[in-house]
């Protein structure tokens, strides 16, 4: 008989075993009676000779070889029955675990998508981005000459490719559609190791100035816009009114650079740029274009070696163009790393936080299991007495906790599914890699491992403790009513274990709370940073007329902007409007600053400023305050006047009035006519840079609505009116969405806010669990000491003394946990340093506040049971003995 065979005939085998042993006993008894013993004595002796029938049976079952399976099935059945018998306990434990594991799974799926999964390219570990840091320009992106130098001279790379991105209008087929277009060098696809799914990639000939006009489509554009027609290859499409032949379709899901709809050859012509490298002029109109450079390392080359290689090339460039390369440094960074570098720390901190939550949940369930194991001590003792071994008992309890964990894990997956959806909504496409987070095989594997580990961690301790039950003591202990002295394990066992678990819970929760507290503190500080403008009731629109029909600095473009402004200004419901460099949205020109009449700085060491435009009316519309002088007026020659921000005034005119000074940053000197308050351009948590506004136009239109329209309905109807007006200027121009300024503001804080919210929720959950833990342990202590309290009160102790005694015990444990937690938090909060804003990782105020909060809640949590203790009636307590 094979073991699985025996499994099916289990019941029959049990009956046979019973029958066989009965036959033996009966036969032996009969023989003994025949020898002259009285039946009672004969039966007793026969039994004695055989040994305990149950023990013999156990041994017989042991040799079957299906023992483990039998036991497992038995344990499972028993476990399910126990869980069903205590639905309240089961629900609380399972929900606790489901929350812990669900949060863990969700965060892991994001970590998996963003940090662990490899990129969908050939040998992604060998792909690196090449940077050239020019500190005065605040940029890390190389110029096309740098790219060409690296491509032609570097020995560390198999391939070097460049790309940039922008927008282009797809015209010619109905309404114009604005698409994201990537400009790529011919070998970009080969560098990534991805080939078009249809057609072919670019040839080097196409990637030259004057090469054939070709284009490659993304799978989604091909399916969405061209209906997935395979005949598209070889056909021409109109892009910015220029005809380009489609030569290929990229595979589905290919997104490099992010969210590209189509790719066209970069076709670099560096002659202009080389000319500009000469240190003569360096002004707005001639700003060089910047590229992203991607390279594939040769198999045995490390990024460090590649950096050394590039350094040699840089030295050569420095000799040729000392001005342009004065402080330049080269950088080599892994592609995968670069895609997530801004969220890596946040994700790891979150992952740490959810692990803490899960550990606390484990401790909590372990607590529950311990308490229940105590109640089941008699059952365990009886089972031990009739022959169950210790490991067998422990295993049964472990099966129960694993079942519980499995239940929690199942429910946790639902929690995770919902949480992932929430996280994706929060991410809102900001980190592309996170968008692919989901419950894939690896995540499910992780969840299974978590379920197993959780079951073991939560169950092992209670299982070992319960299975150590001392048979005779447990059976002797009276089953007293009212729990005056319940049959708890050992004299010291539970009384030591529960507090230990509680201390750990408190410590973990405290660490989480401190982390969340630091984040909240940072967030409040970011919020309280003066914005410098009033976003309420301001609508914004990014104007991006096609560069083909409205080239940069052309009269057509100026006219387009002017007409847009005029149309909006006269719209009913609009108080004022302007065009200007919108904080958080506009990109600024970075230029070296020179002030007329002051000695020029050393070449290449000039301080830099940000330059952009602000039309008359812009500052007023935005609610920005003039600190001195005046804003632009319609009478100004736009190029000849400048408004500087406060930071610039403070830094470069510390003790003077800047009004009247002339700045040399453009082609013509501009005169400072005013100083305007600071605004944060790249984020509220970033430093404000020195800024110059000329009176020219910037691409962002702002409109302040009249107060009676400043409500959701009014804003929505004005938004569509604004779009309609702008669209009427040139029906062929696609128009962007009108966005309330408040939305830009809240978007800019989104990552920080979500991180704070998530950490806060996790910490709050941990806090509640820990508070319940303190309450539970104190209650337990009170119930255990009812008798003692009764005696004390009978001997004259006052309620106050009892109260103090009980509270002191609860607080002692809490303080131990707090001390442990504070130590851990001090050691660990340093990790968060880069996520904080103007808050030190060991911020004493946060630490003090969290500690006092904790101690306060612990006081309440132990006061409630302590008060109950003072209500003990001494007579009642003593009578129970």
């Amino acid at each position: 008989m094979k073991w699985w065979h025996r499994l099916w005939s289990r019941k029959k085998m049990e009956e046979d075993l019973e029958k066989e042993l009965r036959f033996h006993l009966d036969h032996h008894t009969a023989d003994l009676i025949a020898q002259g013993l009285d039946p009672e004595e004969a039966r007793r002796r026969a039994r004695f000779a055989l040994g305990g029938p149950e023990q013999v049976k156990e041994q017989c079952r042991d040799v079957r070889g299906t023992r483990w399976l039998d036991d497992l099935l038995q344990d499972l059945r028993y476990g399910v029955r126990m869980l069903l018998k205590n639905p309240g306990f089961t629900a609380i434990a399972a929900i606790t675990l489901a929350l812990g594991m669900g949060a863990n799974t969700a965060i892991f799926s994001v970590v998996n998508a963003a940090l662990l999964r490899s990129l969908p390219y050939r040998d992604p570990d060998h792909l690196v981005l090449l940077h050239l840091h020019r500190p005065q320009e605040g940029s890390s992106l190389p110029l096309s000459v740098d790219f060409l130098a690296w491509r032609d001279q570097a020995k560390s790379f198999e391939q070097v490719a460049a790309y940039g991105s922008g927008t282009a209008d797809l015209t010619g087929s109905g309404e114009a559609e604005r698409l994201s277009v990537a400009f790529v060098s011919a070998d970009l696809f080969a560098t990534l190791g991805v080939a078009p799914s249809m057609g072919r990639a670019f040839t080097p000939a196409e990637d030259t100035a004057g090469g054939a006009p070709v284009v490659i489509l993304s799978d989604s554009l091909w399916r969405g816009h061209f209906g997935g027609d395979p005949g598209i290859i070889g056909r021409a499409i109109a892009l910015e009114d220029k005809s380009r032949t489609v030569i290929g379709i990229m595979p589905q899901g290919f997104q490099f650079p992010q969210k590209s709809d189509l790719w066209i050859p970069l076709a670099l012509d560096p002659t202009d740029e080389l000319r500009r490298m000469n240190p003569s002029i360096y002004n707005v109109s001639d700003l060089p274009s910047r590229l992203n450079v991607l390279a594939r390392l040769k198999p045995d080359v490390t990024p460090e070696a590649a950096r050394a290689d590039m350094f040699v090339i840089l030295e050569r460039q420095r000799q040729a163009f000392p001005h342009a390369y004065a402080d330049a440094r080269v950088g080599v960074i892994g592609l995968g790393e670069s895609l997530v570098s801004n969220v890596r720390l946040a994700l790891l901190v979150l992952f740490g936080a959810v692990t803490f939550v899960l550990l606390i949940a484990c401790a909590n369930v372990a607590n529950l299991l311990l308490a229940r194991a105590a109640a089941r001590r008699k059952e365990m003792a009886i089972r031990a007495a009739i022959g169950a071994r210790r490991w067998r008992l422990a295993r049964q309890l472990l099966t129960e906790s694993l079942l519980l964990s499995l239940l929690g894990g199942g429910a946790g997956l639902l929690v995770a599914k919902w949480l992932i959806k929430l996280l994706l909504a929060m991410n809102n496409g900001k980190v592309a890699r996170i968008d692919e987070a989901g419950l894939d095989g690896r995540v499910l594997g992780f969840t299974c491992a978590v379920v197993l580990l959780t079951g073991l961690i939560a169950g092992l301790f209670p299982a070992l403790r319960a299975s150590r039950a001392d048979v005779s003591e447990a059976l002797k202990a009276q089953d007293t009513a009212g729990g005056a002295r319940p049959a708890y394990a050992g004299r010291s066992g539970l009384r030591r274990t529960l507090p230990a678990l509680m201390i750990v819970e408190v410590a973990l929760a405290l660490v989480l709370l401190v982390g969340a507290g630091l984040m909240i503190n940072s967030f409040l500080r970011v919020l309280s940073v003066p914005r410098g403008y009033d976003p309420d009731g301001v609508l914004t629109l990014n104007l991006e007329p096609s560069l083909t029909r409205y080239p940069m600095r052309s009269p057509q473009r100026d006219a387009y902007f002017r007409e847009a402004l005029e149309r909006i200004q006269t719209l009913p419901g609009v108080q004022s409007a302007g065009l200007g460099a919108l904080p958080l949205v506009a990109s600024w020109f970075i230029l070296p600053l020179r002030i007329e009449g002051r000695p020029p700085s050393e070449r290449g060491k000039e301080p830099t400023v940000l330059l952009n435009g602000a039309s008359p009316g812009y500052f007023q519309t935005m609610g920005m305050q003039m600190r001195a002088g005046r804003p632009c007026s319609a009478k100004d020659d736009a190029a000849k006047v400048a408004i500087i921000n406060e930071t610039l005034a403070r830094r470069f005119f510390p003790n003077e009035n800047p009004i009247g000074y002339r700045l040399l940053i453009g082609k013509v000197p501009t005169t400072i006519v005013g100083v305007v308050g600071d605004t944060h351009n790249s984020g509220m948590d970033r430093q404000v840079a020195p800024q110059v506004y000329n009176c020219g136009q910037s691409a962002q239109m702002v409109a302040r609505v009249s107060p009676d329209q400043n409500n959701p309905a009014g804003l929505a109807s004005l938004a569509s009116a604004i779009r309609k007006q702008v669209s009427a200027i040139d029906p062929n121009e696609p128009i962007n969405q009108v966005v309330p300024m408040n939305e830009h503001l809240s978007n800019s804080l989104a990552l920080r806010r979500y991180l704070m919210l998530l950490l806060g929720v996790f910490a709050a959950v941990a806090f509640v669990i820990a508070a319940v833990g303190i309450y539970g342990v104190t209650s337990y202590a009170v119930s255990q000491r009812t008798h003692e309290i009764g005696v004390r009160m009978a001997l004259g102790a006052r309620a106050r003394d009892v109260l103090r005694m009980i509270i002191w015990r609860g607080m002692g444990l809490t303080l131990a946990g707090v001390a442990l937690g504070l130590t851990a938090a001090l050691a660990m909060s340093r990790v968060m340093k880069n996520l904080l804003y103007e808050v030190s990782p060991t911020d004493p105020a946060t630490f003090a506040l969290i500690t006092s909060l904790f101690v306060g809640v612990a006081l309440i949590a132990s006061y409630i049971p302590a008060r109950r203790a003072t209500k003990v009636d001494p007579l009642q307590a003593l009578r129970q003995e």
Partner: protein
Amino acid sequence: MKPTKSDLPQGTLDLLILKVVALGPVHGYAIAQRLDQVSRGVVQVPQGSLYPALHRLENRGLLAADWKATETGREAKFYRLTRKGRTQLETEAASWQRLTEAVGLILKLSEGGAK
């Protein structure tokens, strides 16, 4: 597996059971009695370890069992030797023989040495 509580050297119980069963189909109680009688009480087989041993041998395919009526008319589980069991018995018996002979020789030797 638990150590047998028998006073017999490890493994001998199996050999003895195989030998008794080799004489003809027999039930557990009869095996216990026969071991008792034949060894004239020298070999104490705790009945508690008899059944686990029987089941083990059955599981290993050395014994087979059928339910048959005894002379008193009750059903009992009768064990008989399988072919595999017979081979096992022969090898075990032979090796036991060799072992006891060798041990005997050694014991004699040492006595001779003392003389």
